[in-house]
């Protein structure tokens, strides 16, 4: 029994930094922000001027703030377009690379490189220049006699440049797909080929089901990430979310509310709606999983 107790004490000793962080830096601030979301806290005024405003911040979001509604739309459109395209590109290239050849190791690394660089301010700045009036994209279109535009200044197109930047970083899910493809037993393909199955049927009946746990994993991860893009939207729009709110991602608007307008109460309310929305979306993705994710019998 003494050993047990000793282990218990040791357990909590080792866990103590994490416990301190969980309560001090995560849980208590979260509860604090829930309380603040019902106030008019604005960071600049003293605490004594703090006022309880009830659900006014929440009502304002949906009834009284067109920018907020715009931010929700922009974020949902971005995620709905960027996530499937990125996963599609990742799967497509993974299938191309799924051969044992020495060169493929190098290719895999190079395809993965944008995932390491793409989230940086530096690359977002490059992106901004690349899609500007005088940028490389228009230079390329000029070769075909197409006159380009200043893509990042066009409300109809600015978000597309962010989508392309996100899709460009398909390397990380691709690497996970490649690992998943290696897990599918080769005997399955051999047996089906002997039975005369076509390549399309092999893909549809063996590859896709075999890969479905990995597709599911990537889908959850990329969906959560997709809703959180901040750096690229901030840099490409110069911090504004413009032109006319067309790149106003949710997190960018949250940043503006809290740290440009100092409306911390309102920003807290936005953060809580965001948290609940992400939780609901993740739950929906998980609940669809049982219809299309197949876990092999031999795990």
């Amino acid at each position, binding site marked *: 029994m003494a050993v047990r107790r000793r282990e218990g004490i040791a357990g909590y000793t080792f866990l103590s930094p*994490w416990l301190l*962080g969980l309560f001090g830096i995560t849980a208590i601030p979260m509860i604090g922000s829930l309380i603040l979301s019902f106030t008019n806290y604005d960071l600049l005024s003293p605490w004594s001027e703090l006022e309880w405003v009830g659900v006014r911040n929440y009502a304002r979001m949906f009834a009284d703030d067109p920018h907020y509604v715009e931010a929700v739309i922009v974020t949902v459109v971005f995620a709905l377009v960027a996530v499937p395209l990125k996963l599609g590109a990742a799967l497509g290239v993974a299938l191309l690379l799924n051969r044992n050849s020495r060169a493929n190791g190098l290719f895999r690394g190079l395809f993965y490189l944008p995932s390491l660089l793409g989230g940086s*301010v530096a690359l977002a700045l490059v992106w901004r220049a690349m899609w500007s009036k005088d940028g490389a994209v228009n230079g390329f279109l000029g070769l075909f006699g197409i006159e380009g535009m200043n893509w990042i200044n066009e409300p109809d197109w600015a978000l597309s440049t962010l989508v392309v930047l996100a899709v460009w970083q398909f390397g*990380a899910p691709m690497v*996970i797909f490649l690992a998943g493809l290696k897990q599918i037993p080769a005997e399955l393909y051999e047996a089906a080929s002997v039975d005369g199955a076509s390549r399309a049927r092999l893909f549809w009946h063996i590859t896709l089901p075999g890969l479905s746990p990995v597709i599911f994993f990537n889908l959850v991860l990329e969906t959560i990430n997709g*809703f959180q893009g*901040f750096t690229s939207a901030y840099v490409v729009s110069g911090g504004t979310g413009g032109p006319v709110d067309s790149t106003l991602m949710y997190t960018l608007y949250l940043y503006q509310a809290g740290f440009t307008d100092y409306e911390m109460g309102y920003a807290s309310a936005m953060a809580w709606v965001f948290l609940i929305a*992400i939780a609901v979306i993740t739950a929906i993705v998980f609940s669809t999983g049982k219809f299309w994710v197949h876990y092999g019998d031999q795990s």
Partner: protein
Amino acid sequence: MRKVLIIALLAIVVYPIVWMLGTSFKPNDEIVASINLWPQDPTLGNYPEGWSSMDVGFGTFFANSALIAGLTVVANCVSCLLAAYAFARLRFRARKLWFALMIGTLLLPGHVLIVPQYILFKQFDWINTPLPLIIPKLLATEAFFIFLMVQFMRGIPKELDEAAVIDGCGPFQVFLQVILPLSKPALVTTAIFSFIWTWNDFLTQLIYLNDLENITVPVALRNFLDSTGQTSLGPMFAMSVLSLVPVFLFFVVFQRMLVQGINTTGLKG
């Protein structure tokens, strides 16, 4: 056919990186509407010009970034290893509950916490110091790395612990003499990703660091947005290239490890 397709795709994917590198060596009049990867009249001038384009030189920004990234690496490795050992190897009350909460924080979007944490650190008078960027890492707030290390430690044979216990080791000695030495691969993966993520991180550094002497490289690069006009494009590209050099070096040296790292955990680059 397959090879041709792969190489064509690769050309598209690598193009922006090579274009960035090439443009950083272009004189200003060559940058406009040029898809040329390499300058006709290369110049190194953009680099010194960019380096001293702000009132404080980029050397300070690089030093600030390196300090924050370096301390974050150490803090993450130490704190996450301690927590992971408790979760993976020790039996104590409510362990399952804490583990479930740890997984919960794994999925928690970080943006939810920026406002309350900012208010908290403002009460401590930590704004405009690196403390809000480092202290949370000392408290194992990067659940990803705890999870990675727990998974790794589960692969270390329990017999090794048991042998050490028979030799009279307690939980602390088992940690120091068995688990710590064997966890090196997980620590290396954690160190690499901690460094790259912190080096590239923008939002928290933008919020907490204000004065020019305190800001990091990404926040400094952001200032190029305010200086409009073609003349600043070359220096901007030069500094962007320099800012990515550390990440690129990590990529070259640890490429295989990075790829394995995301395989085992699904970490995003």
